């Protein structure tokens, strides 16, 4: 029962932070987050205005803004982003779902882990890029190729996190459930899932960030549309302003996504701790 005590304390600390300190730290974090990008843009601006870097390779920030507005007005960037996000959504849905069940399997069953674990870990260690030629051979160059690569990218972190979560269900909780004689279904929904929630949440976050990285790679290599292809094409045309616009869009979206998911994760952790 010692686990309960510890978790209670933990949730109390998290639930009642000093409002003033929180506001102060929020402003502080905001400044910290912005300091580096602002410094980078200043450096970029200074270097390009003084001609320290080639204007073709590192175009001036205002040109990049102009290109961004042009791409926005022509709808190119929206179209590219829509294609990319649809791919992420599909890949994530398939990959994360499969990853969750696979993680549950190898986390819960020692036999399954003994049979499947090593193969899974070996395959997971091969980066998506290495899979590309084989997958092109199997799937061609159509949409399914990209979805499978993204699904694989989501599958791995999701499975690892879920398995970790399944192994880490406190022994005390399992004992209680046994004493209470809970039905399998109830036990799964009321005990297993809440206890695993923090792990699942971090699995989701890792999956999505992996999907994001793989997306750009797969679109750059074997794509004909999407944000990654837009960047590769911009480089081919020696219009690096397009590449920089792509980098900024991907960076900002990735960053916002990460913050949102971190928030959600913290929320889930808090609730699961409070419930536990």
């Amino acid at each position, binding site marked *: 029962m010692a686990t309960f005590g510890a978790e209670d304390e933990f949730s109390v600390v998290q639930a009642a932070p000093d409002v003033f300190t929180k506001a102060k730290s929020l402003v502080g974090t905001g400044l910290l987050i912005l300091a580096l990008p602002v410094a980078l843009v200043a450096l970029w601006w200074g270097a390009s205005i*003084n*001609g*320290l*870097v*080639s*204007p*073709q*390779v590192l175009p001036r920030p205002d040109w990049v803004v102009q290109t961004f507005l042009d791409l926005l007005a022509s709808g190119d960037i929206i179209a590219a982003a829509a294609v990319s996000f649809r791919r992420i959504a599909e890949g994530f849905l398939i990959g994360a779902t499969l990853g969750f069940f696979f993680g549950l399997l190898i986390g819960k069953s020692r036999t399954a882990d003994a049979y499947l674990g090593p193969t899974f870990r070996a395959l997971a260690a091969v980066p998506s890029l290495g899979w*590309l*030629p084989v997958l*092109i*051979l*199997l*799937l*061609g*160059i*159509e949409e399914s190729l990209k979805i499978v690569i993204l699904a694989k990218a989501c599958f791995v972190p999701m499975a690892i996190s879920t398995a970790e979560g399944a192994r880490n269900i406190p022994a005390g909780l399992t004992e209680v459930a046994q004493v209470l004689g809970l039905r399998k279904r109830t036990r799964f929904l009321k005990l297993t899932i809440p206890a695993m929630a923090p792990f699942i949440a971090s699995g989701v976050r890792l999956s999505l960030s992996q999907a994001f990285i793989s997306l750009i790679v797969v679109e750059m*290599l*074997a794509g*004909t549309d999407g944000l990654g292809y837009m960047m590769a*094409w911009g*480089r*081919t*045309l*020696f*219009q690096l302003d397009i590449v920089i616009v792509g980098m900024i869009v991907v960076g900002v979206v990735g960053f916002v996504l990460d913050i949102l998911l971190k928030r959600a994760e913290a929320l889930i952790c808090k609730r699961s701790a409070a419930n536990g």
Partner: protein
Amino acid sequence: MRRLLSTFLLAATVTFGAATAHAEDAPGTIRFGDVGFGFGTPFGVGLQAIADAKGFIADEFKGTPTKVEFTYFTGTGPAINEALSNGQLDFASYGAVPNIIGKANGLDTVILASYGGTTIFGAARPDLEIKSISDLKGKKVAIQKATIIHWGLITALKNAGLSEKDITIVDLKNADQLAAIAAKSVDAVFGADFLLPLEDKGVAKIFYKSSEAGASGDGFGAFLVTDKFRKAYPEATQKVVTGFVKAAQWLADDKNRDEAFKIWSRAGTPIEVISKSNSGSQLGQKYNPRLDEFFVARYRSAIAFNREQKLIRRDVDLDAWVDPTYVDNAVKTLNLQSLWPDRSAAGVLQN
């Protein structure tokens, strides 16, 4: 002006390093860029690779402190444009489509010589009835867009009375093209001699070879210098071009054919493939360095292609870009007028 000056200073510092400014005609290191292939140390497959391997350009600077340095970019055209723009290269030889893209985006290059021709091949799935360009109608064709191969395909389609709209183009890198045709995701591919092994493996049939499609079917490109270098070192520029022309002269001699193939095979393509790719073409004519009407006409066609495909936003002034004086000078001093007489725009010799 200040920008220009500081760029120049930066480039100069990089170029000469500690060796302070020499007299006008002795640059410390002359840096050459070329398209490269192969693992480990990439190598080139054109005229410049011969000039490098046989030391033709280095020999021009024998006894002077000037060194020559060759870099082969596996990132092909775009990587060379970036390197030129960053002041990392003085000379480069690469395909017409990317160097027009570079010029249109403001690179200060000058064309000094033609780098000759590259043979473009078309390969199709063996289970399809594709025997000529006109059979491509309604088919899916993989190429790497914005390259001279892209130009080659569009030009071949036009010559066969078709247009881009009659086929579906899929933009893929070389390695992915091979996988795509093997997987039957595309019906045909267009590329350089890297497609030839597909036929031996039974994955595809070669149905098109640009050198058999008349004088103007082959791919082309140029040997360029940065305007900055040309202005600062006109004599060194002449020496480089003379060395380059000597390499072409060496290639024109049939007894050097096998050695040339051996040199090019350093880029990873087996000698048999290279010799198959070049069968039926005289290397002396294929690697003609002259900037005559024929060359200019082909560049005009490539510029029009770049405009049509919206690869460039601004036009390129070809007359100001091409400077034939160096190559003409070299051809005259080496007495090679009879080897490479003037060609008309259509590729007919004018004597």
